[in-house]
């Protein structure tokens, strides 16, 4: 039993709203959403937080852990203010994502899965984000940036707070 409360009332309320969407004996269905809500509040999912979410939903902790480790959009380590997801799947690869990746890594001085020292950027490699028509592409936060070139990247990153 966890006696610490790790989520704000607002987040807990949001999880409750998600739970309402499913039958009473299918609380596990809300796990994906609950983990997302927890991540949004805390920036990343610590083991402690995953266990807490499991408790809120009423499933064994390993069940929540399975979900959290299955989807790459959950962050199991702290991430920077801006999470840059670069697609390296086939269409983007054909359209030169290697160059984009190189440029980003050199510019930020970090590799995949790393965060800049100032805590501003985290770089992640992802599979196809279904924006092949605009390849090569990347996602920052909730926004997609397509038809990338080094110059374009400079402008995009500069504009970020």
């Amino acid at each position: 039993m966890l006696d610490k409360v790790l989520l704000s009332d607002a987040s807990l309320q949001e999880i409750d709203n998600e739970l309402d969407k499913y039958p009473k004996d299918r609380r596990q269905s809300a796990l994906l959403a609950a983990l997302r809500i927890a991540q949004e509040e805390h920036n990343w999912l610590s083991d402690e937080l995953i266990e807490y979410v499991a408790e809120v939903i009423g499933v064994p902790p390993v069940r929540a852990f399975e979900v959290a480790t299955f989807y790459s959009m959950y962050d199991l380590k702290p991430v920077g203010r801006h999470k840059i997801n670069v697609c390296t799947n086939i269409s983007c690869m054909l359209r030169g994502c290697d160059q984009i990746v190189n440029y980003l890594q050199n510019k930020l001085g970090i590799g995949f899965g790393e965060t800049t020292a100032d805590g501003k950027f985290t770089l992640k490699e992802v599979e196809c984000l279904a924006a092949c028509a605009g390849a090569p592409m990347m996602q920052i936060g909730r926004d997609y940036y397509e038809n990338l070139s080094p110059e374009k990247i400079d402008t995009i990153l500069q504009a970020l707070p």
Partner: protein
Amino acid sequence: MTTVTIEVDGKSLPAQAGEMLICVTDRNDIYIPRFCYHEKLSIAANCRMCLVEVENAPKPMPACATPVMDGMKVFTRSKYAQTAQQGTMEFLLINHPLDCPVCDQGGECPLQDQAMDYGSDDSRFLEKKRSLPSHDIGPLIATEMTRCIHCTRCVRFGEEVAGVVELGAPGRGEHMQIGTFLNRSIDSEVSGNMIDLCPVGALTSKPYRFAARSWELQNHPGISPHDCLGTNINIQTLRDQVERVLPIDNPEINQCWLADRDRYSYEAVNSEQRLTQPMIKDGRKWREVDWETAINHATAGITTVLNSGSGNDIGKGIGGLAAASSTLEEFYLLQKLIRNMGSDNVDHRLQQCDFRDDNIAPRFPASEIQIQHYNNLAAVLLVGSNIRKEQPLLALRLRDGCNKKGTKISAINPVDFDFNFDTVESDVAAGGQMVRSLATQAAHVAQIKSAELPFDIKKIADSNPGFEQTANNLVAAGENGLIIIGALAQQHTDASLLKAISQWICDTTGCKLAVLGCANSAAGWIAQCVPGDNGMNAGQMLGQNGSAGLRCFILLGTEPELDSIDGKSALATLNKAEFVVQISAFKSASVMKYADVLLPMAAFTESAGTYINCEGRIQNAKVAVTPKGEARPGWKILRVMGNFLELNGFEQITIDDVTEEINLTDITPSCRLVELQFHPTLSSGEKSTPDLMESDSLIRVVDMPMYRAEVTLRHARALQQTADNPPPAAGLNPATASRLQLNDGNRVKVQNQSGSATLELRTNDRLAENCVYVPAGFMETTDLGRHVRVTVKKIE
């Protein structure tokens, strides 16, 4: 269900429409390889080893997940099927370490066997193999996760059968990895079954690690002595040493499962604490002697006590106590020995303290429902039973029934136990309140059935009842309902009353009754290892409730200071007894203090004997290994003692001669009292509710933890390290703790009339309020005896 006909490899076979192909082929002995499929688990269809060719199907089909259809044509060994199976095998072996020579599973490994049949002798995979760290997940299971093929049998077992989700499959694709959350330990009481289920060497038995190769082992069918099921075990030995215990599939009893208790208790047999040489006490010093000297010493001591009695008193000062896990023959010869000496003092019920219904007792504690029907009940009421720890495999059946047939289970317990099935109602009541709760259910039943409630029940019943569904469910279930009297009820100071009220409810509703005795207790009763009309029961012999206690004891496989719920009286009586003969497989410091002779007895794997389970099923166990050192089977020791004491009737040569003497006819499993008598409650006034709020005193809830209840289990090394065997602590409901201004982790002194124990406090919100839970079976808590009222004070 409609029957259809399918054709497999040219043979036409009948099948049920909709059943999976693999069920049909298994039934007809047509072999299909598999890893993830298991008869007792849900279908995952994730290993793809069972691919077969189905006519007109566009691709190979997994036999475990393909429902049969009329006229379906299947080929299990066609070129097409074999190519598919070989393909699967090639993929499975890509990341497998192929370390069979250093793997305990080697020789009994489905992956190894099937790789021989479907694998290639060379790998086309030149890339780097994936390897994974293995973590310590407790004392029972060793892990080597690089070998795992992700069949998820272990995960499904936890979720579906055991009812605790401990293992999971975090990660995805190549990164998926079977494990527990944060590598926590696996604590289920039936966890060892995952070892049997794992088709590779990823999960193996930790105590058995590197002890033997499977092909060197010899198999000896046996019976597990630890609960009233008579679980069928395969005792595997190497060079006359027990190396492992596995289940023998018996659909009527244990199916293919084993409780960890049955699986790992053998470690005690090989323990350092075994008594291997007869010993006698000369003055205050112990010395090892030969058998003849030891038995002469024993019988001389007994004779001295016998001769010091006079007239009618001859023999009255002597008594015999047997462990509940003794065999039928041991029970029988012990009582015969005692009775032939003119005494009626013989018993095996060390955990019991209310014996008021002995004169109306049934022939043996039994379950009126057969074990195999525990999955099919409509309603169950557990009275003082932590069935999950008492009879773990019965709990699995109740769970199955609850999930598949909707069995409505209720409980009246001092602790809201964490069962692996759902309860409809759980009445948390300790001490006298437990009797009251049961009486209240009886009152409900009387009302629903318009039956007349016996006055004795009425006066205890609560006028302001809760928990209404339980009685309704029992009435609705009728003969498909069951009341289970568990160990906590049988240890209760008002056990006779709990039994009588339960019986009245059963009589009135038509429900069945089960008194689940500990270990081989049914055989103890049938062999009459219980006192007769003139005899003393275990409690009286050991000086409980102010009785004087005996002067001379023959103890068979029991250490009463730990086996008795009132260890304090037991120890005091034994310490002042004039002569104590201990026949046991183990040595212990406390026994060496009070005993005068130690006779080394064979352990359960070393002796033949008969076990009778709660259904009255008679099963014989054979010798698996030679007794250690000079140890001898219990029945032989007792017989020779009979000879040395010059008693009649001890001429048996084989164990069968002993068995033949025992009346085993008409063993019908009925546990009804001959007549209903409602003894006045001894624990009235011990209501755990308001009136106690004022006072400082609490009710002690006693329990015998699952791995402390027998001397054998206390010496089983790995079991002793499990989470089910925590060091003794004082459990307190958080509300009660805060009323007493105590916190979790405090050192507290628990005190009552007989003594005290200093323990760490553990708050537990599953415990009834105004109670303190202090387990028996530990020297640390013996001093508290059986007095129910206790106080708890913080030690600064």
